[in-house]
């Protein structure tokens, strides 16, 4: 049978489905404004995000955008403004997974909230932006996608309007975000000024041809500003300080969404821009410095700052926020190691880490959402003894914590090990050492939470805790996936390495 040939624009299917879902939610909202029928609203949002996930997985497995196979190849859309390759699909999968988990969990968390339809459509719009970021191939489309992801996020962080913390967090997030958007945009204009192009491939050809040599300072500054914008989106040093405030004040499912999906989207931009637009040697020839040096420094500083700050927190959500900064540092190794042969191993390892992280970190924040739903306090002490009342959820929490720490029987172990071994092979001894030391340190504060829920005695006696279906389902799915990724890591490795090899 002749294979069905889909039109090329369908390659953006996952992003289009997310956008369509957001619009469908607007339609529902306009038909019955102020609807609080969460079955319909959460149902549409869940269906949409799962459909996007399904399509992304299907495309990825079917080899859409795969290179090196006859009849396939990177799909370029709108004159190369967007590309759909394995890298794009891989990150669309991460975004869709996190969106689905967050939407399902929000069913209970947002119960009784006034702005239901707005909430879900904003989540889906932000997800659309993130999925588009994965495919954007020109500095303009990247910026537009970035703003599409950011603007709904600001609103989502402060959606609990009666909660001062939420509003304050939203304002801080917005101010820092606006500043970094400006920096990013300025970086784009400088790069444009130096090379005369916005499309990544064209920038690279100009640099390789040596035509940008006269504007070395301009280009260097532009690259520096781009790094700044990316550091904001991925919550890396030096633009990380918004993260603890925003994650703490935001509704917990939104914290999960931002710290997992938004971070991954930031990284896909970083991976694509720096591999496609700024070829290492040619760029180093122009600006006089190897840009991986910047990422080596950022990776080490980010993981160290995140972990040390996390170790000193008493508030669970803040601890997770700082831990998410630490994990951004781990993923930055993916860019730091690109200078060596086998750079695709390092970047592939970072991509694997972001996928596993999408499950374990989302799960951890959703547990915080569950605790907030129960009305448990915010500190470690408030979590004491929860294991007696809710063993299943707390067991899942233990899985997330040990996986985040990189303890072997869980998915987090693989990705950390691959980061470690590929960093070693790339000759980044200091980075590998920093990774090991930080992972060992992180065990301290992750196990502290496990100790609180399982070993410590409760501070006050609680009645039986409720078991909200949506939150429980999302947490259990995330936990199961974190475990299943241990035996089932083979396909992830193959996909990630293939995707990374295509662009490195």
């Amino acid at each position: 049978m002749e294979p069905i040939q889909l039109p090329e624009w369908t390659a953006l299917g996952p992003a289009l489905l997310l956008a369509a879902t957001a619009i469908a939610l607007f339609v529902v909202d306009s038909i019955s404004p102020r609807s609080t029928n969460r079955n319909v609203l959460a149902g549409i949002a869940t269906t949409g995000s799962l459909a996007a996930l399904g399509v992304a997985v299907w495309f990825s497995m079917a080899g859409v955008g795969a290179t090196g196979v006859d009849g396939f190849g990177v799909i370029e859309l709108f004159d190369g403004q967007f590309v759909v390759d394995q890298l794009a699909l891989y990150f669309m999968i991460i975004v869709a997974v996190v969106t689905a988990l967050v939407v399902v969990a929000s069913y209970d968390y947002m119960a009784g909230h006034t702005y239901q339809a707005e909430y879900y459509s904003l989540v889906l719009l932000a997800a659309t932006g993130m999925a588009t970021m994965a495919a954007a191939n020109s500095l303009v489309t990247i910026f537009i996608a970035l703003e599409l992801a950011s603007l709904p996020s600001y609103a989502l962080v402060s959606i609990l309007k009666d909660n001062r913390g939420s509003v304050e967090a939203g304002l801080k997030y917005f101010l820092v975000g606006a500043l970094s958007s400006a920096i990013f945009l300025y970086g784009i204009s400088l790069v444009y000024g130096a090379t005369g192009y916005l499309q990544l491939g064209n920038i690279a050809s100009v640099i390789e041809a040596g035509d940008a040599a006269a504007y070395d300072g301009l280009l260097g500054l532009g690259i520096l500003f781009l790094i700044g914008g990316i550091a904001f989106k991925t919550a890396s040093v030096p633009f990380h300080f918004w993260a603890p405030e925003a994650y703490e004040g935001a509704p917990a499912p939104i914290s999960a969404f931002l710290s997992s999906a938004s971070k991954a989207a930031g990284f896909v931009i970083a991976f694509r821009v720096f591999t496609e637009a700024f070829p290492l040697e040619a760029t180093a020839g122009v600006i006089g410095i190897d840009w991986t040096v910047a990422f080596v420094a950022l990776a080490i500083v980010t993981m160290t700052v995140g972990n040390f700050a996390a170790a000193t927190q008493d508030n669970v959500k803040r601890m997770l926020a700082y831990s998410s900064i630490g994990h951004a540092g781990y993923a930055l190794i993916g860019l730091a190691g690109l200078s060596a042969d086998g750079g695709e191993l390092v970047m592939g390892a970072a991509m694997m880490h972001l996928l596993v992280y999408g499950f374990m970190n989302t799960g951890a924040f959703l547990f915080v959402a569950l605790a907030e739903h129960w009305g448990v306090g915010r500190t470690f002490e408030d979590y004491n003894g929860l294991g007696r009342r809710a063993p299943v959820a707390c067991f899942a929490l233990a899985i997330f914590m040990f996986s985040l720490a990189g303890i072997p029987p869980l998915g987090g172990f693989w990705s950390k090990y691959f980061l470690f071994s590929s960093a070693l092979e790339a000759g980044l001894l200091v980075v590998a050492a920093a990774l090991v030391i930080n992972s060992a340190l992180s065990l301290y504060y992750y196990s502290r939470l496990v100790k609180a829920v399982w070993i410590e005695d409760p501070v006050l006696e609680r009645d039986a805790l409720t078991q909200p279906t949506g939150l429980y389902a999302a947490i259990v799915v995330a936990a199961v996936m974190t475990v299943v990724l241990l035996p089932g890591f083979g396909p992830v490795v193959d996909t990630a390495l293939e995707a990374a090899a295509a662009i490195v």
Partner: protein
Amino acid sequence: MLLETLLAVALLGAAVVFVAPNRIAGKLAFAISLVPAAISLWLFAAFDGSGNALLEGDLAFESQMEWIQFGDYAITWFVGVDGISLPLVVLTTILTSLAILSSWTPIDERESQFYGLILFIEANLIGVFVALDFFVWFIFWEAVLIPMYLLIGIWGGPRRKYAAIKFFVYTNVASLVMFGAFVALVFGLGDAVSSFALPEITDAMINGDGVQTALFGVDPTTLTALVFVAMFLGFAVKVPIVPFHTWLPDAHVEAPTPASVLLAGVLLKMGTYALLRFNFTMFPTDVIEPFVVPIAAIAVISVIYGAMLALAQTDLKRIVAYSSVSSMGYVILGLIAFTQFGVGGATFQMVSHGLISGLMFMAVGVIYNATHTRMVTDMSGMADRMPVAVGILIAGAFGYMGLPLMSGFYGEFAIFFGSFGSEFLAYAPVFTAAAMFGIVIVAGYLLFAMQRAVFGPYNLETEYEVTRAPLHDIAPMFVLLGLIIALGVAPELIFEMITDAVDPIIANGGDL
């Protein structure tokens, strides 16, 4: 696929028990644990392997599947057993079933979680002994830590939090050191290996050229020696040997009885098993040679110092805990002797000590259940009130002392016999004689404790009514006693398959 079935039953059983109601969890867990026990006995009966698993031996029940390919190295799901690992697998499954029985009395809260964790530990322990790929092995090795940490931390005694975290930190740091060293070794081997399968790595080390690549400016010879030392230290914490033993008494004393049984019975053997599998099988003898005398010295110090520490204790559980340090010293001595009887005896002693220390902890646990004290100074004449439990405690103590016709005798005898005549170990007779002196101290502290606590007029300061122990507390101890005597009378039951797997290791040493 039999080994996979074994693992799957324990893992699924753990999940089922974890969500089962507390009321039936204990009985359900016991019923489930009988399945792995039966399978492992069947494996034992149907065992048809020969030679050493790492040295081109004929594996039994092996299976190998591709798992992950990352860069130049493949990670495979690779399991199988030989004459060294099979007895330890059987020890694990039997001891788990008995430990579950012995926890029916003392565990009275959050039962389903407790038994779920015990079955989860069992699965991982089996995995440690059957895994033949480094990553498979390491995953099981580390996975043992978390449930044990929780068992001590949740159901332990008054200082449980401190003991649990100490156990976790010590063993986890040790694992990290060992893991780093092993990865460095594999990278150092370069193109000679293409996977993390242990037999392939061993082959490259023993029959190939060994480490040829300098890593980070460390030359190959030094690198090999460093890796050997780092791995030895990593495993030494787990064994444990002096001076890395301080986590053990805390963990043992605070752990609930069934966890102590598994901790002393099987977890400590993970360390000695790994030493045998990695340090003393993978490395050529010329790498080991410079470290022989220091290791033997540490072993003898462990024997004597551990025994002296036991002598100074008044808590029955602490006495048994410290005596484990002493017994593990014998095992190290046997391993470093590098003779058939030395290494074979050490392996035999692993099984034997697992049975005997398990028995001792159960007996102490039964007495504690009735009296709510473990202090030797608090009790006297216990034989009056609990004749059966105390009788078994005495029998176990004699097993520890190495009474002929009990397994302890054969294990220690083979170790001494093997180490006395060792040509690999310089001053072998001196070390052996010094270690033998440890037996005298063992007899000293055990008899001393027995005499104070067990005999004499009955006197116990307690508000609890001391009654005879129920059958499900006594029965597992009788099973263990039966096994101890069976192995004492007919050591060839397992010793033959052990020596069959040990011989290729000795043969590597050439004309030693």
